[in-house]
């Protein structure tokens, strides 16, 4: 029997089956369980393109890994037939053989090249063959949400009718979905009509206690923390080398100049709260700067943007004066709060700069658009200015208005550089070792990329076979955990 006739015969039988299916569909509708949802009943005649669509194999359903026990995931191998405008969709029902209805919440249907398992590492491990497996995630809590949503809308309409005295019918009731036995069917749909594959899918979501997709983050974090602690221990014994950082050598020069000219210095800790690590780095550095200021018997003013940062700065400077052996010279009024609003803070600091003409300005911590306002006004009063920030966008503005700028990580190395404390130098050495590891990983990635490029030239589908897959897996290990 030639393929052509076999196909036609197949379509005839399928059409008859579909016809037989219709009354059942209608009947189910009349019975109409109390679900407030009058789902779109699939039109009786399913188009030929859906009937011809070959059912994908390996349709499985299981609990979604790495989630809080609210979702299940359906996975299936890509179907060989690839007609346009046909998309996958999922129908549900509350009984294994009950009427299957579209999902009550807006579930976007999946096109034939979407939702590939290889592209979502949050829930699936990276394999090359996962490129031709689809997945669909169904969050069971959205059933209750949509029921509540329906109930609210129904109540609004009901109260409206009551208010205007119209016949309101029975009072709407909140529909309870029984989440334990919800059954799903995968189907294909094109402009309104749908064909469900008759495999009934059911799974119970489970709450995981470890997110395996973040395993690479955990390993790298723990290893790096271990290296830091180890280096801090070894740093106590042997001394360390740190390359010259121009900005930090200039700190002494700036303090000396301010003392000669008998004018104060301004020290700003940035506009972020105490919970941001760059603000913590800025306050640590203030401690070391204040110790030098105490020795030089000069004065440093610290206008603060956040009250907690102000308290920390007061504690740090008091400790510095105490260690420098001059606890009486500490004056808490030099460390004061202005405001927590960005531009009134800047206007006030600019006004103080122009009036008191400080000899040196230190801008450390995290800054936003006001970096240039501070830098430009400070520059016009002729002060030495040293800035250190990890907010990338603001570094160019500090470069054009300050004498020295610490770029990114140099701010975090500052307190170690100035204090030369062995335990702080140790963590600098550790981050250098981590940088070396990153460089090696980058080089390996380059080599693998070149190899894969030539492999892809030879065999576009599976460049370099198993080795190629291992290389891609190496690079995916460094991929971030999405979401």
């Amino acid at each position: 029997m030639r393929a052509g006739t076999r196909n036609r015969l197949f379509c005839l039988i399928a059409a008859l089956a579909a016809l037989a299916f219709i009354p059942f569909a209608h009947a189910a509708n009349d019975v109409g369980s109390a679900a407030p949802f009058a789902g779109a009943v699939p039109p009786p005649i399913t188009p030929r393109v859906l009937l011809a669509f070959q059912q994908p194999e390996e349709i499985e359903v299981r609990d979604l890994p790495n989630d809080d026990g609210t979702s299940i995931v359906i996975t299936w191998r890509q179907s060989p037939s690839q007609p346009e405008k046909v998309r996958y969709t999922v129908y549900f029902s509350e009984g294994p053989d009950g009427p299957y209805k579209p999902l009550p919440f807006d579930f976007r249907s999946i096109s034939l090249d979407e939702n590939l398992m290889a592209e979502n590492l949050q829930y699936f491990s990276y394999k090359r063959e996962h490129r031709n497996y689809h997945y669909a995630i169904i969050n069971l809590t959205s059933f209750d949400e949509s029921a509540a949503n329906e109930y609210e809308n129904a109540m609004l309409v009901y109260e409206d009718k009551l208010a205007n005295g119209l016949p309101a019918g029975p009072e709407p009731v909140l529909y309870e979905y029984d989440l334990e036995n919800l059954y799903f069917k995968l189907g294909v749909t094109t402009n309104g009509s749908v064909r469900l594959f008759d495999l009934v899918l059911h799974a119970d979501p489970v709450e995981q206690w470890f997110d395996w997709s973040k395993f690479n983050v955990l390993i790298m974090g723990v290893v790096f923390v271990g290296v830091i602690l180890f280096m801090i221990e070894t740093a106590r014994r042997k001394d360390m080398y740190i390359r010259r950082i121009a900005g930090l050598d200039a700190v002494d020069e700036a303090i000396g100049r301010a003392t000669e000219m008998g004018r104060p210095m301004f020290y700003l800790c940035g506009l972020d709260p105490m919970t941001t690590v760059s603000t913590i780095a800025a306050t640590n550095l203030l401690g070391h700067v204040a110790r030098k200021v105490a020795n030089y018997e000069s004065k440093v003013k610290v206008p603060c943007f956040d009250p907690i940062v102000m308290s920390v700065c007061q504690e740090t400077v008091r400790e510095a004066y105490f260690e420098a052996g001059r606890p009486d010279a500490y004056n808490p009024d030099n460390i004061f709060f202005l405001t927590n609003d960005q531009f009134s803070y800047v206007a006030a600091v600019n006004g103080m700069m122009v009036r008191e003409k400080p000899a040196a300005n230190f801008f450390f911590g995290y800054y936003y658009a006001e970096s240039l306002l501070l830098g430009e006004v400070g520059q016009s009063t002729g002060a030495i200015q040293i800035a250190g920030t990890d907010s990338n966008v603001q570094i160019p503005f500090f470069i054009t208005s300050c004498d020295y700028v610490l770029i990114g990580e140099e701010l975090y190395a500052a307190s170690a550089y100035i204090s030369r404390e062995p335990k702080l130098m140790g963590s600098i050495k550790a981050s250098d070792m981590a940088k070396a590891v990153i460089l090696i990983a980058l080089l390996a990635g380059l080599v693998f990329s070149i190899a894969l490029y030539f492999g892809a030239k030879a065999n576009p589908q599976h460049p370099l076979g198993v080795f190629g897959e291992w290389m891609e897996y190496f690079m995916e290990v460094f991929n971030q955990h999405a979401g």
Partner: protein
Amino acid sequence: MNAFDLIGIWVAAGLTLMMLSFLYKDNPFFRLGEHLYLGISNAYIVWFLWWTIVRPDFIGRVFVNLEPSQPWTPNYSYLVPGILGLIMLARMVPAIAWLSRWALAFIVGWGAGTSIGPTVNSYLLAQLYSTFPWVNLGPVVGAPVGEFVPALVNALLLFICVFTVLVYFFFSVEHKGAIGRTADIGIWVLMVAFGASFGSTVMARVSLFVGRARFLVQDAERAGHAFSILLTIGILIAVIAGIIAKRQGRSPLEPPPPLDAPPEG
């Protein structure tokens, strides 16, 4: 345009000119605006914290039910931040000021702890993964030459730039020889990056002043020519102050004699 809005626009135009006067030099008008702004912004922050954090999250959860229609039970676990907040205020009493260290430790410890995971994830991994050339090249391998060659060049250039910039940040190694040269290339890449970033933000900054100018020229002018009247008054005052300064033999740009010497403190 009732009186309420008319006065409002005049006040807004006046304060705008006062703050812009700082471009000329520091003057009593700017100082007045600065202190007014400090007072108002602090009051606004107190309202904002009360209205968006203290009232809904603390009072609403522990003491008072803010939505009478909903079922509500007091959640006493939220007394902990309240107590820690009061402990933080202990700083004002020198005798028990050391108590505030517990609250400080809570906040700083929380800040340090919450930053490690996301930092490894989005600061390290995301940047590292997107630097691998294959990631950008993979989907384009089969593409025609016109599209593939630029992608190849950009992918390799991106790799070299990130590599050299990272080498620049080595601290415990002398920047000499091969490492020194790579670090120099890194500095060049940083300079191009900073120049481009500077140039791209000029548009946004200029549009800020365009917004203010639109307010002055359109809204303020419509409210009884507030802009032109206030501007002429401002210029007159500046001219008179300049004449007085010249008669006292100092350039107008210097501040007046120490009638208000900088407050020592």
